[in-house]
């Protein structure tokens, strides 16, 4: 297959991944690596490099809109970025020592968790009012816009959230993903931020986390321009179209489609890893 034909096919696949990820709000990154390795037989390291670059593009593009709307908690984001960037650098160092088969199994497990979480309905939890020592120290409590005006919220369990963010950073670098699911889990479940604030702040942080390991991988030769450019432009185009279609698309159908795609990817990644053919 020639470079041009391959670039067009990869861009189309990445476009669908970006579109699906953006419409379901689950991120396209987790689909890109399985797409590249399983469908296009790309080496895992090149796939991780290309995926990280495209994650930076979509995260920064979407974060721009959310930050301006006032959902993102910039202080929470910056504070937790300490944990995710250290995690990403640790993960990038570990990546050189972990075999492709182990990484493939880890990816499969994470895809199963993603498929499970994408099926679960999201409900807004009760906002906490308990004062927290660390949240007060770092002035993390804030407010966000709701249909009935600005609503105040308090933040808790900062150390727990910080620890989980460190893990999210490691996984982001090892697997070339945004780790959005873990980031949202840390903020929404542990730190009790409103769901919308958790998802937008997670998105805000994903670009910085990915940039930490992408910088290292660029030096290590994981980022191939011929592969990365159709992936990045495809994912970005899909994500931008998804943002415009949001609210008009059938999200239930898309979520089910996303779950099926992720589940198929999970089985294949697990199979390859466990049989030592990754």
């Amino acid at each position, binding site marked *: 297959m020639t470079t041009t034909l391959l670039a067009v096919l990869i861009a189309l696949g990445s476009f669908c991944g970006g579109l699906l990820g953006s419409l379901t709000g689950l991120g396209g990154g987790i689909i890109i690596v399985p797409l*590249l390795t399983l469908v296009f037989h790309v080496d895992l390291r090149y796939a991780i490099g290309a995926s990280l670059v495209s994650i*930076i*593009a979509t995260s920064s593009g979407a974060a721009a809109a959310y930050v301006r709307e006032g959902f993102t908690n910039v202080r929470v984001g910056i504070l937790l*970025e300490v944990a995710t960037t250290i995690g990403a650098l640790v993960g990038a160092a570990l990546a050189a020592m972990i075999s492709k088969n182990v990484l493939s199994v880890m990816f499969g497990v994470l895809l199963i968790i993603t498929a499970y979480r994408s099926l679960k309905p999201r409900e807004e939890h009760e906002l906490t009012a308990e004062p927290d020592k660390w949240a007060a120290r770092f002035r993390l409590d804030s407010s966000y816009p709701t249909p009935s005006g600005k609503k105040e919220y308090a933040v808790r369990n900062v150390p727990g959230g910080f620890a989980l963010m460190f893990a999210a950073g490691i996984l982001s670098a090892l697997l070339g993903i945004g780790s959005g699911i873990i980031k949202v889990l840390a903020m929404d479940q542990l730190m009790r931020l409103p769901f919308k604030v958790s998802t937008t702040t997670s998105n805000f942080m994903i*670009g910085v986390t990915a940039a*930490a390991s992408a910088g*290292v991988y660029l030096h*290590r030769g994981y980022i191939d321009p011929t592969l990365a450019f159709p992936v*990045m432009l495809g994912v970005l185009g899909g994500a931008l179209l998804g943002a415009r279609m949001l609210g008009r698309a059938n999200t239930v159908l898309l979520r089910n489609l996303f779950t099926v795609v992720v589940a198929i990817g999970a089985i294949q990644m697990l199979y390859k890893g466990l049989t030592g053919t990754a």
Partner: protein
Amino acid sequence: MTDTGPNGRWSDHAVEQLIGRLLQIGVLIAAAVTIAGGALLLFQHGGAIPTFSVFRGEPERLTSLTAIVRGAMALQSDAIVQCGLLLLIATPVARVAFTLVAFVLQRDRTYIAITALVLVLLLYGLLFGTA
């Protein structure tokens, strides 16, 4: 969150608006450079048969920051693409640097320290490439 900083000009809201704009501009410029390089790459080498299934690692001219910029200046298509991707990686770094400036203007010591730490970690990875 405070609405106005100590000097009355740098409110959190104003900072957020600027951060949002900065991210948009960064992605736009990076995407434009990548598209230009990618189009040139396909025009010049579109008929080649690439192999991504075997990892060989990129040559030094596509991994060293100075070599990438030099190659892009010499209009080498793959170096132009790599330069666009480098600009993309630099966008969140610039965002953190800008946030640091905002916290300095707000004289927020705690967050100056936190943001500076994140910036140092990012620059360390990007400039030295070791983790």
